[in-house]
């Protein structure tokens, strides 16, 4: 087990390094115009462009530029061009809404994804299965920003049941925080519930034909015991790995669209406003930071998975 953790951690670190290089290349080394122009954004003045060129060292060789950029990100001196704000500090202060969104929505989509998946597998072919299938197909086909906008308009603006977006800090008012987070949670969950219930349904249906299920039935276990102790336990493994990665991508700013529609002022929305202004430094840092979270959670999920299932750690 120790050897597996070391190998997995080494792979994760190598991947993180590769991510930082690729992200750097995306923004600095595409063979086209001057990177200083790119970095300073659309509305930059010539003086700003000259300053950018000097501080980022664009006259130096590319590997020097790479280390300079990494240094700026890690010592926290990277600055956005439109507002001249420190990017690392901005991300740190935007983390609270993003984590609130990820944790709440993560719980909802996991519970309902599993519930709907199991119900639809147990009732395969019946009307409940059909209903849940329709629900999940619509869920995976609806863009979150459209769903969010429609819910905000009808439930928030028209009916006045929910507030019109915005974020209230959990430390200032926990009840208002909950009240403001319900719609974003539901919106973000709709897509994932659809995906998870479909995956779980097909995994369970495949597994029902496996030998160990027949053995369990032959031992005289009730259908419920077979389902809960044998089938569900095994078919949850892929769902848990999936959940780890999706959760990481939401914390890493991947819920850009949900955050923007509900004006939650999280990391994702920071990325969105930076794109609109073509302000590259924040987009650079958030892309890197989002990928870091996915790699980190991916490694953790693999290690947990390996501790549960010896075949994984022996074959990897």
């Amino acid at each position, binding site marked *: 087990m120790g050897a597996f953790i070391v190998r997995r951690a080494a792979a994760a670190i190598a991947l993180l390094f590769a991510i930082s290089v690729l992200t750097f290349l995306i923004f600095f080394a595409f063979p086209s115009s001057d990177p200083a122009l790119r970095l300073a954004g659309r509305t930059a003045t010539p003086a700003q462009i000259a300053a950018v060129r000097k501080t980022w060292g664009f006259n130096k060789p590319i590997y020097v530029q790479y280390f300079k950029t990494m240094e700026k990100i890690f010592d926290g001196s990277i600055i956005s061009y439109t507002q001249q704000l420190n990017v690392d500090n901005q991300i740190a202060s935007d983390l609270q809404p993003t984590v609130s969104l990820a944790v709440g929505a993560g719980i909802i989509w996991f519970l309902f994804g599993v519930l709907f998946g199991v119900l639809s597998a147990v009732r395969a072919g019946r009307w409940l299965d059909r209903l849940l299938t329709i629900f999940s197909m619509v869920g995976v086909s609806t863009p979150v920003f459209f769903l969010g906008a429609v819910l905000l308009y009808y439930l928030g603006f028209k009916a006045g049941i929910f507030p019109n977006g915005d974020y209230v800090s959990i430390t200032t008012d926990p009840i208002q925080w909950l009240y403001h987070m319900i719609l974003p949670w539901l919106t973000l969950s709709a897509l994932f519930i659809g995906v998870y219930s479909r995956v779980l349904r097909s995994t369970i249906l495949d597994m029902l034909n496996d030998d160990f299920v027949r053995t369990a039935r032959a031992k005289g276990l009730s259908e419920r015991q077979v389902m809960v102790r044998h089938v569900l336990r095994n078919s949850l493994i892929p769902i848990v790995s999936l959940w780890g990665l999706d959760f990481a991508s939401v914390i890493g700013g991947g819920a850009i669209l949900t955050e923007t529609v509900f004006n939650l002022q999280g990391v994702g929305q920071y990325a*969105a406003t930076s794109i609109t202004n073509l302000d590259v430094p924040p987009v650079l840092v*958030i892309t890197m930071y989002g990928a870091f979270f996915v790699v980190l959670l991916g490694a953790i999920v693999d290690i947990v998975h390996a501790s549960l299932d010896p075949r994984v750690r022996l074959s990897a």
Partner: protein
Amino acid sequence: MGTSPEFALVEPDVPPGIGPYRLAWRRLRRNYVSLAFGCLFLLIVILCLLAPIYSADIAHIGADDTSHIDQALSLTGIPIGPTWHSTFFLGADTTGRDVAVRLLYGGRNSLEIGAIATLITMFFATMLGTIAGYMRGPIDGLLSRFFELLWAYPALLLGVALGTSLQIGGINLGIFTLTAGSLYVPAAVIGVVYIPYVAKPVRAQVVTLREREFVDAARQQGLGPVRIMLSEILPNLASTIIVFVPLILANAILLEAGLSFLGAGVQPPAPSWGTMISDGVHLLPAAIHLTLVPGIMLVLCVLGINVFGDGIRDALDPRSQIRIKR
């Protein structure tokens, strides 16, 4: 290997050997729900292709035509919603443009980007996945690391990063040039983002295929690796590739909408469903039709592809399970 005549005589309506694709088509033909949604998607495509005719002969207004602005805004300055007239049938936007006309032209852009992105993804993913799985060794190591690398980014973030970067400078790779603001920028970005989602399963399948007897037989006959990959491996990947096409198309259209909504995709004034929803959301409490019209069209289109794609998957392989991370 001709069909045996005695066999054909015994059962005249069922041919003795039904190929897997004939069998799949039979299963699909019986799946009415899935066919209906396939037709819905086809209908949307046809409507969007007819956009110039609708614009010229029915609505009598162009996609960027703002000359009817006096009829388009109500007394309070809010754009009118759907009407029963042929002009402004689905309402107008704030600058007095016809929403129905822009919906169809925007659909052309969204579908075109989705189709090009799907072609890019399928071509490169199949090629790279096959090479990685067949060659193994250092080439496989390198390509697999590359898939892992792209896969580690949240899809939307990678799309946003590439889209933002290309928007400012465009890209120039010798024969292949994209100018900033071109429709092909989001198409290329989306195509690249989804490569690992297809390449990884293709590679896994090739790894098992290359150990099969028929590949060994081809190798014994002295066929080279390129020939084996093209004529022995590729035909066996066909059903996997067919299953992935609708899945990637649906997700490409959704990602285009997301990127355009954020401003990293299609650049205004060119319409797309994503940019139209984005414009609508900014005017939200005043004019809901600007959000609803393109949004519902987008959902219907993607739903059509998804349900039809599910039908194809069930028909080709009733037990397969393929999904995509977003």
